[in-house]
């Protein structure tokens, strides 16, 4: 059953997976309030791959964490699958991939991937089947019995993606998942991620620092800027869904990248 179908909007149009309007989030710190998000309006539909790009402090991670109910917005409305973020979290509506793999060192790779399934109370047989399938999806078959600290950084991050996929949430939230990896591993994982997205038709929200990564992966790129964190531009990608790595040398790719760069620069001019 598709959860989005249960939550049709009143006007009957295709319901949004994520809908934010007038969203604001202010942190109370010792140095006074910090406005991490201000007046964000954004709707993300099913099956989209949306990247959030912007300099540090622009609120892209905060927005992702607000969707995941790890932060509470202080203004505006935010719905996930038509529910409040808290309801969505309790319904296990999304898988979250953090900046670091955050695998538990006392569990083998297969037991790390099985962790959400154990918590959600899946049967043992079902757990085994899902672990096998998701590890296969991220090309980690054969590493089931290894401990995280026996694997490379790239493999650890792939295991953490497998863990987020294991319980088959339709929404995948990824917070700079490849930020700590080197260029070659990153290219490889980007390719695999696109493949996975094409195969599973999940909705993916992807936070990144890298313009080429954002352009290569996304159907839509949200450019954000800091102080206060806000959306300055939303760029629809005209690239086809099928994207070989060398698409990054095409003029179309470069022109989208240039537009993203312009958007980032415009956001920055406030600082100078």
């Amino acid at each position, binding site marked *: 059953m598709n959860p989005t179908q249960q939550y049709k909007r009143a006007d009957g149009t295709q319901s949004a997976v994520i809908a934010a309007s007038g969203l604001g989030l202010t942190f109370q710190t010792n140095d006074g309030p910090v406005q991490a998000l201000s007046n964000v309006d954004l709707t993300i539909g099913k099956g989209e791959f949306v990247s959030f790009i912007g300099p540090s402090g622009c609120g892209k991670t905060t927005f992702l964490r607000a969707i995941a109910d790890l932060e509470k917005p202080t203004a505006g409305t935010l719905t996930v699958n038509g529910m409040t973020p808290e309801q969505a979290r309790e319904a296990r509506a999304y898988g979250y991939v953090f*900046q670091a793999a955050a695998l538990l060192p006392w569990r083998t790779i297969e037991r790390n991937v099985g962790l959400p399934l154990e918590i*959600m109370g899946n049967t043992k047989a079902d757990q085994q089947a899902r672990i096998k399938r998701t590890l296969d999806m991220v090309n980690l078959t054969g590493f089931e019995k290894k401990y995280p600290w026996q694997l490379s950084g790239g493999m650890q991050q792939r295991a953490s993606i497998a863990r987020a996929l294991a319980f088959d949430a339709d929404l995948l939230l990824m917070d700079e998942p490849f930020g700590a990896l080197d260029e070659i591993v990153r290219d490889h994982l980007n390719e695999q991620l696109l493949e996975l997205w094409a195969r599973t038709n999940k909705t993916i929200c992807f936070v990144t620092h890298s313009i080429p990564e954002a352009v290569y992966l996304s159907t839509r790129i949200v450019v954000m800027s800091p102080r206060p964190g806000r959306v300055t531009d939303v760029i629809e990608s005209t690239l086809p869904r099928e994207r070989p790595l060398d698409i990054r040398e095409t003029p179309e790719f470069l022109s989208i990248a240039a537009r993203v760069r312009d958007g980032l620069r415009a956001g920055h001019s406030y600082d100078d």
Partner: protein
Amino acid sequence: MTFAARSWQAWIVLLLTIVAAITLPFTTNSTGFNSTSAVITLALLIAAIIIDGLRLGNALKAVLLFIAAHGAAWLLISGIAGQEGTAKLSFYLAIAAAWLIAWRCVTLLSGLRVKNRSVDTALRILIPAIFGAWILIIWEALVRGAGIPFILLPPPAAIGQRIANSLPVLGADVRQTIFKSVFVGYVIGCAAGFVTAILADRVPFLRKGLLPIGNMVSALPIIGVAPIMVMWFGFDWPSKAAVVVIMTFFPMLVNTVAGLAASSHMERDLMRTYASGYWQTLWKLRLPAAAPFIFNALKINSTLALIGAIVAEFFGTPVVGMGFRISTEVGRMNIDMVWAEIAVAAVVGSVFYGVIALIERATTFWHPSIRGG
């Protein structure tokens, strides 16, 4: 045979042996040491110097040196027995020379590269065993050679003999003190500290109110508490167990509280994204992450419990128990029995600690301090 191949120990042994030979005899009265045993002793030392210079396999060389060193030591100690306090300079020089040979032997042994695993394990036990044996040999030789009064420091052989002759008494004391007071107190104290830590974590009001009180409990002087526990729980082991509970409670509480905070924010956020409940997060994330801290407390408490139980017995006890034995035998000038109890306590304490350390290695194998980086 080349002289350069000799170790520095061999050169010093050579020097010591020459001086010892010049300053013979070993003792002021020569009834104990006949000249034959003195000559054999010196011959063994010389033989060791020669062996060290030979082109032999390191294993064979180590065995020969082992025989020479311990043969010389045995001759020296059995010669001095019965005429304590008569040793002269050459006796000490000879013992020092034998010790250096044993040192050389251990150096050779620790340099061996063995493929066979069981031989390797045997070596790993043998090396510290030789090391420990020489502490006892030197203790024995010095105490007998210098004629130190028995009441101040008995020789280890006398302590060993006392242990062998008093096994039933020592056994009863161990049963009373270790298997009753220490074991029961340790289990209750550690369990109570652990449960309190979880409660304090779960209920904020307890965290604010209980931790400072726990702090105060840990500052209670055991010497003051022990007699009160005797009043409360009687003379037998429950009062000692109560002292052990008080001593072990706080280290476990503090370490568990610190351990429960050891998991990272990211890991806790991860559990939150799974909508994991408090107990699931505790069981699957926070307690495993706290395990190194909890084991730390278990190890600290293993020695604390032993101290607590023994000292508590000084304040009233039935006529059995390690603390009782120590306090009464001191009064009766039976110092060898006191040392026998100390030796038994040291062995039991080490085994206790070792077992916990082994369990720790098996459980927290994933921690960088154990898997090595």
